[in-house]
């Protein structure tokens, strides 16, 4: 294989892995919240973007290191999720048709955040790139990959691994899975369902924030990434199966690789939406999701 062809193959692999890892992470956050609370969070894309914007602000305006900014955004993200759950989300736990109510409420939140971002950050939209946590590149044969992107991929996959371990081995994780599967039975077994709702919302939202931070390190972004990521994350959740982190991983990776492979043969425009084709094919065979609970 010539160097040029090898370069293209390796670039495709790396794109699929990195993009797929970030897709999977964000979708895992979305699916945890939906699987537990039945909350289709329409504002997950705006949370994703908020994290990226705040990291950018801390690094460029305040001169913080990228690592310090990321940790600060995680802490702030947890606090924001806790406040949102206390003030807004928990009021609808017992509402009839609460998934519709949640969707409408979070849609309102989406519009508010979108408007705020447009009024405040739009004038810097040509500058949204964050300094790397780790400088330099690593050579994979003839293909250079930035260390920052490698870090984003490793952290995404690492967090997904920790999530698996939490859900499988930790009492809180097992309680989450119990509520995913049957909340009434879980309650009868002594699980504090409302506390698990709170945990799942905060955990899921924090994972989405982390996804936004990692995306900002790996790529540039603009304000439209909120909508793109929101749609992608929902699509992955539906195809992977609501509440299934494994489903989010498998489908997220599939979508990432689909985009990368299609971009070799077709235009970037076609590649960008090729995952929707993959989604349709998967749903044809498994209309309830690949790993439905």
């Amino acid at each position, binding site marked *: 294989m010539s160097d*040029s062809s090898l370069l293209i193959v390796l*670039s495709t692999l790396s*794109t699929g892995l990195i993009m797929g890892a970030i897709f999977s992470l964000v979708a895992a956050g979305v699916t945890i919240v939906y699987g537990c609370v039945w909350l289709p969070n329409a504002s997950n894309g705006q949370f994703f973007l908020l994290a990226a914007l705040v990291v950018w602000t801390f690094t460029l305006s305040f001169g913080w290191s990228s690592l310090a900014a990321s940790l600060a955004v995680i802490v702030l993200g947890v606090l924001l999720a806790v406040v949102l759950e206390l003030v807004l989300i928990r009021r609808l736990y017992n509402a009839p048709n609460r998934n519709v109510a949640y969707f409408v409420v979070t849609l309102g939140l989406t519009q508010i955040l979108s408007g705020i971002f*447009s009024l405040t950050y*739009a004038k810097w939209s*040509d500058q949204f790139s964050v300094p790397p946590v780790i400088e330099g590149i690593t050579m994979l044969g003839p293909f*250079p990959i930035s260390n920052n992107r490698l870090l984003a991929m490793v952290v995404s996959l690492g967090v997904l691994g920790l999530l698996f371990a939490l859900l499988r081995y930790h009492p809180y994780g097992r309680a989450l899975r119990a509520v995913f599967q049957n909340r009434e039975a879980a309650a009868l077994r002594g699980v504090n369902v409302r506390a698990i709702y709170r945990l799942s919302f905060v955990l899921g939202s924090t994972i989405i924030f982390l996804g936004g931070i990692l995306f900002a390190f790996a790529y*540039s972004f603009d304000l439209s990434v909120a909508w793109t990521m929101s749609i992608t994350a929902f699509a992955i959740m539906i195809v992977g199966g609501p509440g299934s982190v494994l489903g989010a991983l498998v489908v997220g990776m599939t979508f990432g690789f689909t985009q990368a492979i299609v*971009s070799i043969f077709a235009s970037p*425009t076609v590649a960008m939406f090729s995952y929707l084709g993959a989604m349709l094919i998967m749903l044809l065979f498994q209309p309830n999701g690949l790993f439905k609970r």
Partner: protein
Amino acid sequence: MNNNMKSWASRMALMGAFVWCSATAQAQTGTPIKIGFVTELSGPWAFIGTNCVAGLNMATDEINKAGGVLNRPLQFIIKDNQTNPSSALAAARTLDVNDKVAALSGPTNSDTSLSMYGYAEQQKIPFLVPVAAFPQLTKPGTHYTFRIEPDAAGWGYAIAKFIEQQKPGAKVAVMYSDTALAHAIVAGFQYQAPKSKLSIVSSILFPQGSSDATVQAAQVKATKPDYVIVIGAGAFDNVLTNQLLDLGIKPPQVIHPFGMTTQVFGWGTRSIGSIYGTFFDHGMDSLTPEGKSFISRFDSANGRPPSYIENFCYNTAYVFKEALQAAGTDDREKLRNALSKLNTKEITSGVPIKFDKNGARKEYMYFMEIVSVNGKRTYQSKQRLYIEWNPEVLPVYDIIK
């Protein structure tokens, strides 16, 4: 006695201040001359619109401190079009009907400009477009619209001429985002490339919202281009550039059709040696004393040098001033005639401003090479080429619809 003297002194001081204020006020009597300025202060193009207003406000302050126009203050009523054509049209209508402005100006985005263009032509309002390069803004039959920025198809033409001079027979790759501006530039380049004996070895279009170009950069690298023209939207431009540089494309091989100050900062030190096109830059050779003063004052006020955006909007105010003085009135029809007959120069660079029968200007472009970049504070550049051309060398209205 002392108290009386103090009291008298303070009364005289007050009176003196009153006389001085009146004298200053008498330099500008009457109601302000109002120009509607509808620009992008929010939405995706806000980073250009806000820069434009910074340049405009500097010029307006200077003009009014010097006595205004026709002994009246010049007032730009600034409205935000949210980078939305419908909002731009609504704002234009409000300025026309409610504020009865003498003219319209302001948009820096081709889509918002086009929506105002239709209104201005229909309502017979002089419309001076400071920064929008879509050629259809001055298509044949245009009567009330005048465009200060050269049309984008011409930029593509100029790039082809630049490359032809640098390396005859060069192989060129093009990577660009799906925006009207990028399409126009690429169309102009594609038209001129065969005439300049250049071959286009790759042409890749990215949808808006793209964040990654890893695979496409590898594909471009595989074609072994001599030059790569990079036209990314927003921060994606940095991603495109860095991914090409990561793969071994050298900075002097990278050409950006346009470079604002914030873009140069974004490209950073990795792009030293890269080329960018512009219409005003603090590194260019032909700065006038007013241009150097403008750069110095803008830098002091904003913490960075101005680029062509701020310069065009700065000059827009002076163009209005000259046209109003030539017209002798703010009557729309007379102002329109004065604009069409204007034969002047950019106050900052001496480049001629003269509009043809459709409101287009004789086209020009500078090509600059990045010499050094100092964080987000400043950069140094040197002029590699200045080129002028007549807009009619390109069948612009045929190649861009």
